[in-house]
Every structure is written in structure tokens, then in C-alpha cells.
């Protein structure tokens, strides 16, 4: 069986991403985040931590009155993201990005990322096993 190496890995990763379980790699998505509360965050990257078991994007978002509101956005497992093509340089401080995400149940400015539109316009997957279609 001849396989494209990266297609193989990406396929396997996609299987995890879309297998329908309630897994965010090693903990429960549902215990922390709410599918019923999607949110789109447009803001400026403060920090991108590509660390295990989950990456974290710190982003400043303009609030309704123009004030700066800081959000913490969890991504999927960084090893899986790296196999998709992410690197620690995918996000840089100052980048203007848009994140499609799901809010934390506690109402804090915490969310779980599904996709990120990067500063160069590419829209990349950052999600987890429960990331719904269309998000």
C-alpha cells in the first residue's frame, strides 16, 4: 500500500478531529466548553503558546465600547497541529486574526478554537474532536 506520508497523517488526524466523540485529546470538551455558544473573535495576537497538552492563543479583542478585551483560546493538541502544518511561528504577536471558537461554560473570556483565519488570509483548522461541521 503506497501512501502519501502526509496525507496519511492528515487523514488520521482528521479522523480524530471529526470522530464525533467528546474528546479534546485528553480531557472532556463538554466539561469546559459549550457547543451552543459559538463565538467569532477578531483581534490581535498577544501570545501563541504551542505547548502540550493543548496550545493557547492569547488575543486582544475590541469590546463593544472599543475597549480591549483579552481572551484565552485553547487549540487542539500541538503535536497534532504540527502534523497538520502548524508551527510556533504560525501566529506572531501583533498578527490580526479571526478565531471561530466555542465559549467556556463559565462565561469567562475563554474559548476553544475551531478555525483561525491567519494574518495572511489563510483559514486553518485548530479544532478538536468535537468541532462541528461548518464551524
Amino acid at each position, binding site marked *: 500500500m503506497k501512501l*502519501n506520508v502526509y496525507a496519511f497523517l492528515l487523514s488520521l488526524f482528521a*479522523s*480524530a478531529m471529526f470522530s464525533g466523540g467528546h474528546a479534546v485529546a485528553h*480531557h472532556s470538551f463538554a466539561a469546559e466548553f459549550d457547543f451552543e455558544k459559538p463565538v467569532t473573535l477578531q483581534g490581535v495576537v498577544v501570545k501563541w503558546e504551542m505547548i502540550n497538552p493543548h496550545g493557547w492563543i492569547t488575543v486582544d479583542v475590541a469590546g463593544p465600547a472599543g475597549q480591549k478585551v483579552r481572551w484565552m483560546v485553547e487549540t487542539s493538541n500541538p503535536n497534532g497541529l504540527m*502534523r497538520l502544518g502548524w508551527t510556533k511561528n504560525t501566529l506572531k504577536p501583533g498578527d490580526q486574526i479571526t478565531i471561530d471558537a466555542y465559549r467556556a461554560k*463559565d462565561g469567562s473570556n475563554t474559548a476553544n478554537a475551531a478555525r483561525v483565519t491567519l494574518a495572511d488570509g489563510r483559514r486553518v483548522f485548530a479544532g478538536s474532536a468535537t468541532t462541528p461541521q461548518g464551524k
Partner: protein
Amino acid sequence: MKAVPTYYGFAVATAMCVLLIAGASSPMTAQVTPAPSNAPNKTLPRLPGGRPDLQGLWLKSAGGFQGLFIGSLDGTNFAAGGTRGGGRGAGGARGGPAPSRFEYTPEAEAERNYRRQNLYLDPEARCHLPGVPRALDQPAGLYPVQIIQDEKYVALLHEAMHDVRIIPTDNSPHPKNYWAWDGDSRGRWEGDTFVVDVSNFNGRAWLDMEGNFVDENEHVLERFTLIDPDTILYEATITDPTVFVKPVEMRFTLKRVPADQQILEYSCLEGERSLQNYTQEDGGKKVRVK
């Protein structure tokens, strides 16, 4: 072991190659998991002593992924020619072949229900070792395991949790007065199948992140069968007379990952900031906002 690229070099190479193949990936072939035969398979890779060579990097296969291919990083073409994501296929909630139903004693079922309402308690969510068989029964397709083998040992090096199992092949007895998250593993070859008897558990591990669990009376019999050069059939029978009224059977395949890949670092505690956000309805401290 041949030299591997540096972490960042590998990351860059991966990113470049991913971009190169965008839109030109190959579909996967259908998953086949026949029952292992007793007849020696002459097509299998073998060690000089004749045992099947299990060495390599492996990834738990997902029942739902076959036929999928990745078209691009934007996630818009994950499944050409089929339902996106492939549905659940023949698999269970996490994509792999579903384990048989857990049949608990009444007391254990109450405990399972309590844990299901308190996912905050999941040991792996707080970076403890997963136990057996959860070490392999991770979310499908996500964390590879490296197998290294000689005549005396079969070693499983898991990316997830940096879990390591070094299994002697001499069927030696379990030690006394030793209890551990992963228990103690003793292996033996039965024809071309590597059979592992696992005991001496500390009784604290969960079987998954849904609250299914075992106690210190857990006993696992694992069977690793190389059914073709790129597929290991993994079977596990879990018995625990103080938890289950019948054995729990698990069966899924591990697929070979191309040789230029490697285990990556998994420093679990570094970025673990999730438990602090768990809400009270799952046993956490945060109050859910409706």
C-alpha cells in the same frame, strides 16, 4: 535508530510538505481486520529469531476515517466523496471499533454514574498515566506509539503522557507488593501473537474520559497480532470481578505510520489549564453561565 530531524526542522519540513500535497492526497483503503490465523504468515516482517517484527510507529485506527482524504489545511475538504468526517463508521463514540458494553455490578454502576457527573476527576485529564488498555485506547488517530523489540522485550513508547511499557517476553511472574497505574506486564508469544498478561494495577485509572473505570482487581489479557506488514490487530479482555459482571472486550487496529515520522514531546503539565475551567456540573469549581 537513524538520525531524526530537529523539532523545528521537522516542523518546517512537515508544514512545507503539507502545503505541497494540499489538494493532491490519496484516499485511504478500507479497513480490514480479519481474525488472526494460526498458520504462519510468510509475508510478515520478522526478527532473525523468527518472531513477527512489531517494530515501528503505529497509530490507533479510527473506524470512521477510511475513505477520507485531506484536501487542504482550511478543513474544507476533509472528506471527498462522502460524509465529512466519515461519520462514526463501525466505530464507537471515539471513532474506533466500539468496545462491548460495560456491564457493571450495581455498586460499580453507581460509581460510574458519579464519575460521569464528575469528569473533573479523570486522572488523565490531570496528566496521570492512562493505565491499560487506555494507553493504547486513546482518541483514534491522534497519538502514535513506537514499538521497539528484541528477543527479550517488547517496549511500547507512547507519545501520549510519555507512557512507557517495557514488557518481558519470558512470561515471568508478576512481582509482589507492587501496584502501578499501568500495572505490571508480562508477555509471551503464542505462535505469531504476542500475548501480554497485565496485573498489579493501582486501581485508580479510568478506562476513558466518560467515567468508565476499574479498580485494583483489574486484570487485562492483551493480544498483539501483526495481520499484515502495516496493521496490528489489538485485542484486550478486561476482567475485574468487583466492577464488571462480565469481561470487557476491546478490539481495534493499529496502522503503521510512515517511517520518517517520530514520537514528539508531550509535556502534559505545561499547558494544562483546562481543569480550572470545568464547571460544577462536571465536578469542577466554575459556575455555569446560562
